[in-house]
């Protein structure tokens, strides 16, 4: 089975390591598939404005440079580690209220999607690009003041657009995803090297982007594992 992590941040947003270092950290640890998913933050809220001020977000301006760098690194990762690297973003709709906030992974993104757009627009645009849509940390996280509960609260409306839900994020496990029988994956939400040791996804499929996306979408041959040091 392929050892995978689809939720990883670099210095392009609020991660602590450069893209190249992140690739090496995962490659050296023997991972098979990873997705780099830096934040694209909504600029229409106070939190979002701060993210823009401190350059902790991917913008329309640097998006293609970001994509190009991931592609270059993906080639290096494949040649050296036989590790598949997929470009993605984490659309981050941040508000003061946890009930209004939501984070969405768009995996295998090709064109920029703004976080200020409506949820429907974001989902449809992701579908148009044949990208994978994952709801991140959809429920209460331990020790977290600001949660991202909007998608879970409105799951009846949005579940049809979402290819998978994070059933585990770093150290948190969201049992509710299992109870609702939603398709699932588990990720580290990597920001620092120590986050390498956290929940991960195992996929039973070929090591190529389309097989990985299909496996997650159909949620067959998917398992989660706690990767420990």
């Amino acid at each position: 089975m392929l050892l995978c992590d689809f939720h990883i941040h670099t210095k392009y947003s609020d991660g602590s390591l450069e893209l190249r270092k992140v690739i090496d950290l995962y490659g050296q640890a023997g991972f098979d598939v990873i997705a780099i998913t830096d934040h694209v933050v909504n600029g229409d809220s106070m939190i979002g404005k701060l993210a823009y001020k401190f350059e902790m977000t991917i913008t329309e301006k640097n998006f293609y440079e970001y994509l190009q760098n991931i592609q270059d690194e993906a080639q290096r990762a494949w040649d050296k580690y036989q590790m598949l690297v997929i470009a993605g973003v984490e659309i981050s709709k941040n508000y003061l209220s946890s009930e209004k906030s939501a984070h969405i992974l768009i995996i295998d993104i090709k064109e920029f999607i703004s976080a200020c757009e409506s949820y429907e627009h974001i989902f449809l645009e992701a579908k148009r690009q044949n990208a994978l849509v994952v709801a991140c940390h959809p429920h209460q996280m331990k020790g977290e003041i600001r949660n991202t509960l909007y998608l879970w609260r409105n799951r009846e409306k949005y579940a049809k657009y979402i290819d998978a839900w994070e059933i585990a994020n770093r150290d948190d496990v969201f049992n509710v995803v299992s109870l609702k029988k939603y398709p699932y994956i588990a990720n580290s939400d990597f920001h620092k090297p120590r986050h390498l040791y956290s929940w991960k996804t195992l996929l039973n499929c070929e090591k190529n982007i389309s097989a990985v996306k299909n496996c997650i979408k159909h949620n067959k041959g998917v398992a989660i594992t706690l990767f420990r040091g």
Partner: protein
Amino acid sequence: METFYIFTIIAFLGIVGYGFQIWAVRSKIGERNDNKEYYPPISILKPLKGIDDDLFDNLESFCTQDYPEYEVILALQDYNDPAYRTARKIADKYPEKVKLLVEKCQIGLNPKVNNLIPAYQESRYDIVLISDSNVMVEKNYIREIVKHLSDENVGLVTNIIRGTGSLSLGAKLENLHLNTFIISSVCFLDKFLKMPCVIGKSMLMRKKDIEAIGGLEAFKDFLAEDYVIGYNMHKSGKKVVLSSYTIDNVNEYWDIKKFLNRHTRWGKLRWKIGGGKYLSEMLGNPVFMSVISLLLNLSWFTFFFALWVSSVKIFCDIYLGKIIKTEMNKRVYLLSPFKDIIIGILWFVPLLSSTVVWRGNRYKIGKNSLLLPYEYSGILTWRYRIISAIKERFA
């Protein structure tokens, strides 16, 4: 004489002693290996447990050696070990050289020896190289160190290590300590005291010599199996050689806790092995001594003396770094006095506790680092239960 003067004098002597240690390193690095070319087939045994920094590159550096005939055995205790996937990838990439061995062995209390025993039994050749997974080497490594074994009197070849990586604060402190205190102490013991000081990160031996000292099984319950192997080899009449070939110990993302844990454990080992000699370590920490002198007598004299000692120590460390060709940024050396103070404080821990926690179990460390199961009896053992409860609470 006032007490602070004693510490001031000790600190001064510590600086002088450090000069001798640097001399020992210089002399060791400059040593030429004039032994004749010798290419016997070799089995490299790699006990793996968890992900070390740059594990893939470390393992690969052993698979691309410029050496005619050798095998690499990657040994793990179970398939769930995070290192398994990296080991698998390396084994797939170099199938002709690498053998991946996953075998549970719980013969003793030392997990590294438990890991090594199946690999040793599986190895094909008469010469084995035991090498840790956090070590990276150049292509000529085996070719250089094996020359020493052309002398039949040599029973064990070990290497000096140099810390590299240093991306986090913990890793910076660790590498700083390896590249100053550890390397200089090892070379000093080798040059001036002729004491075998074996570092488990690289041990090259003949199987017949290992068997002569009881085989690996004889060391299954020792925490410092490397030291005890070296000691027994020396006692058996075979020479223990410290090669001048420097190998890299990669430490990139260590946190402070890992640094503190390792040096508390190593301190306990040295206390149990060295006994009274352990006291001399404190005398060899001039920065800490000068700080004690300052604390005992807050004056301009002791303040400037502590400042002078720290500055001299920093310059000496930078010079030592130059000798061993470390890639460490010079600014990192500013942490050197801070590191020495931490090490000075940790020095006291072994005097208060002689137990270690390993894989969730507590062991008592006996003479020469022999591990004994710890029995929770007696009123004093409650302190460990309280500490565990506090740790659990905070986790």
